[in-house]
């Protein structure tokens, strides 16, 4: 462990990220909402901490090793997650507690979108845009952004990159240099965000709302500037735009990169993960819409189709926007939707959950075991697309899957121990671990009314979900700390 090198990078990252507090200040000043001071104070705090970490060790320039990468990523997410709560706390909105501020900022950064604030519509503009910006930064990954803008991370950048990007196979670089890869990802991300904002604006949102919502849509976050989320606009066009951009952002960004470079749609069509992703969402939509119709939940068929599709895509990609009170939908639908959120987005996307590719692998692995029962001597490889996958990837996916469910089971128990009922506990864990946002029961609308210990547990769940469990869990193994 090269603690001094880690300290240097951490300090540097904090200094750089203090600049992310500038946009809310600008917005606040231009709207004259009088809530700028908390941000100014926070910048000072960020800079002081950053420099006091950085200056004493500024000459420690060594390449990061594998282990250092994990530590930097986890520390940075934790430190930034907590530090970003500072402006919210200082703003004193609704006499918000420290726990709530941190919950809100971690929920933002991890693109979960679970909120503890009731009365969002009345928040000052600076705070509103800040929440949305947090989601946007967390979406593609703050470390990936750092790798793109800080060239001196070098090879160490790859270690960080790997620890942060989601998916089972992480060695696929789009370009030979890691910095270029990170830049390419951010350009695509930026492109999607701009087109999304324009589309929202053309569909009738105000400029502020369009930008705010484009941030949380493309980041698959789910924060909104209104208590009623997208439902506030009551506009089919906006719903359709949201569906399209949520779908696009749930796709592996490497796929976008290849498609843009080749100027063709074939890469999508050929990609097994993409096909499964669309297939699952389509199948669940059909079931949902059919069941809604059957129960006459909505008055017209068009409403059923739009609301059904919107809610499936929003929850299936783990965005968490709502237009209808989906938690009061009939029968098995709410739970079905939560199940779909476990599948989540594609690897290398901004979505959460287990990731489509892992589910696909598990299904194929299951099918292989069945085949083996019939043909005990058969040699069977698991293929994705037409390429056979190495056994160790499949083993890793199994391990991940097991850990994912062990963690969620444990957390559900812990939440119930704090006094939550079973439905609330289950849905809160699913909502946070999958970086989804809204749950069922007491956490259907927001997370304001659950107890503080439960909130802390859920903060951990959100971080675990965003860093795909192992990156964080590895720090708790003794072997990691042994020299």
């Amino acid at each position: 462990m090269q603690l001094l090198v880690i300290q240097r990078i951490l300090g540097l990252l904090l200094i750089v990220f203090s600049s992310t507090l500038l946009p809310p200040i600008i917005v606040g000043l231009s709207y004259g909402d009088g809530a700028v001071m908390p941000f100014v104070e926070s910048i000072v705090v960020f800079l002081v901490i950053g420099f006091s970490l950085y200056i004493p060790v500024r000459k420690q320039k060594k390449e990061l090793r594998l282990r250092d990468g994990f530590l930097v990523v986890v520390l940075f997410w934790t430190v930034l997650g907590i530090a970003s709560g500072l402006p919210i706390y200082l703003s004193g909105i609704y006499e918000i507690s420290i726990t709530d501020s941190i919950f809100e900022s971690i929920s933002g950064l991890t693109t979960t979108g679970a909120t503890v604030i009731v009365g969002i519509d009345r928040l000052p503009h600076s705070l509103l845009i800040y929440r949305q910006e947090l989601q946007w930064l967390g979406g593609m990954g703050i470390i990936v952004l750092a790798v793109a803008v800080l060239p001196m991370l070098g090879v160490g950048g790859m270690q960080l990159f790997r620890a942060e990007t989601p998916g089972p196979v992480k060695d696929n670089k789009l370009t030979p240099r890691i910095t270029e890869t990170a830049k390419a990802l951010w350009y695509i991300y930026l492109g999607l965000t701009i087109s999304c904002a324009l589309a929202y604006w053309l569909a009738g949102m105000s400029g502020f709302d369009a930008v705010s919502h484009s941030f949380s849509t493309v980041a698959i976050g789910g924060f909104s500037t209104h208590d009623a989320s997208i439902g506030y606009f009551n506009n089919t066009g906006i719903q359709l735009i949201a569906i399209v951009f949520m779908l696009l952002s749930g796709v592996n960004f490497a796929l976008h990169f290849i498609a843009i470079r080749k100027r063709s749609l074939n890469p999508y069509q050929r990609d097994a993960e993409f096909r499964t992703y669309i297939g699952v969402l389509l199948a669940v939509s059909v079931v949902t819409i059919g069941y809604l119709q059957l129960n006459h939940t909505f008055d017209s068929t068009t409403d059923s189709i739009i609301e059904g599709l919107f809610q499936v895509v929003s929850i299936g990609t783990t965005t968490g926007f709502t237009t209808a009170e989906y938690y009061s939908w009939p029968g098995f639908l709410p739970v079905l939707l939560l199940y779909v959120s476990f599948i989540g987005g594609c690897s290398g996307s901004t979505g959460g959950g287990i990731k489509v590719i892992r589910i696909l692998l598990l299904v194929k692995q299951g099918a292989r075991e069945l085949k083996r029962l019939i043909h005990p001597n058969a040699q069977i490889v698991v293929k994705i697309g037409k390429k056979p996958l190495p056994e160790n990837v499949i083993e890793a996916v199994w391990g991940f899957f097991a850990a994912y469910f062990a963690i969620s089971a444990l957390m559900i128990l812990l939440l119930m121990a704090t006094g939550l009922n079973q439905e609330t506990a289950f849905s809160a864990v699913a909502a946070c671990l999958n970086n989804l946002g809204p749950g069922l029961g007491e956490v259907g609308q927001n997370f304001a009314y659950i107890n503080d210990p439960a909130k802390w547990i859920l903060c951990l769940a959100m971080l675990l979900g965003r860093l795909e469990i192992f990156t964080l869990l590895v720090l708790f193994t003794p072997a990691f700390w042994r020299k």
Partner: protein
Amino acid sequence: MNIIILGAGQVGSSVATQLAREESNEITVIDINQDILSELQDRLDLRTICGNGSYPALLESAGADDADMLIALTNSDEINMIACQVASSLFHTPTKIARIRSPEYLNRPGLLSDDSIPVDFMISPESLVTEYIHHLIEHPSALQVLDFANGRVQLVAVKAYHDGLMVGRKLKTMSEHVPGVDMRVAAIFRDGESIQPSAECVIEADDEVYFLAAREHIPTVISEMRKLDKPIKRVMLAGGGNIGGQLAAILEKEYQVKVIEAYPKRARELCAMLDSAIVLLGDAADPDLLVEENIESMDVFCALTNDDEANILSSMLAKRMGAKKVMSLINRGAYVDLVESGLIDIAISPHQVTIGALLAHIRRGDVVAVHALRRGSAEAIEAIAHGDSSSSKVVGRSIDQIKLPEGTRISAIVRGEEEVIIAHHDTVIESEDHVILFLTDKKKITEVEKLFQVGFTYF
């Protein structure tokens, strides 16, 4: 520069390591062995792709469309050539370098041209290593002999001994000692550390001294540092593979050569190939065989098999049994440091020799030769100065006026066909001069490249 490297073997991965360190290069490495690639990917900031590098689809996915250079270094000549052909026909890659080992291809100059097989530069590690060893045998007292300006200037490393005339004296007295011989001490290594060769510097016994001089002056200068070894007469080569065979063919004209080869089939091939050299069938680490073939009267014993451990052990055995000087081919860098401390006189690292030749093609600013010095800590570069005093940073300026990066020195200049000028502080560089520089810090290499780039490319 966007570079695709085929083959992640010893040469391939060393080249990738060198190139990836330089900010401006984007490197993609292709190999069929995923394990080697994963290891490389962990260590360096580059992209790796697993598969057969001559297949168009694979080259395409490696970004051959906008690659500036393809370096084919697999162990198959045929794959290397086809890869160059594919890159040229389908992707119009501007520069294609291929490693070609088999003399059958090397001996046909027309074969590798734009009209037939489009290989711009070929490098043959075997030929390079053969030439390198040949130089060492020509100069028995030297540890390393490197050519600059087509061999008109040579850089020689020698170990100073008490019996050398210069030992214990200051460098500035050198010119009084050997009037008429212009030479330049480029670097001195004492106990593995580089020391600045200033005029006041005193040469001590056991120093490794690197000096540059015109080819004809080399023996005179060596004799200043140590007593000259007797010229070599008898050479024994252990291992008659590509290198052993080629070397024997060159050496047999001037020396008595014995080649030990373990495989009967290859031994017969060698017999057919060689005229006066004696081919022995047997194990190079067999003491009885060595005794029988008079190992104690051998001037040089070279272990040239492709097995590091076998080379080291047979050389040690030969040394113990009385061979005067032993050399061994060693691929692994870690072994080189281990054995050079005394067990073996000279360790030859094939990929280091190869990389020098390769780097010369890759460097910009018309760098024609790059040599890594023995410890790998320093590098010697030959670059051509172009342009005039307004467009170039070096032409028309005296050495004092040139802003050289720290740790870099200009040692010699080769002008025209014949003239070799050992650089002094007031020497003025002219256009088309070959300038020979020394770098003790390899990180400065990009700055040196920039220095030699002309006019508009320099921003």
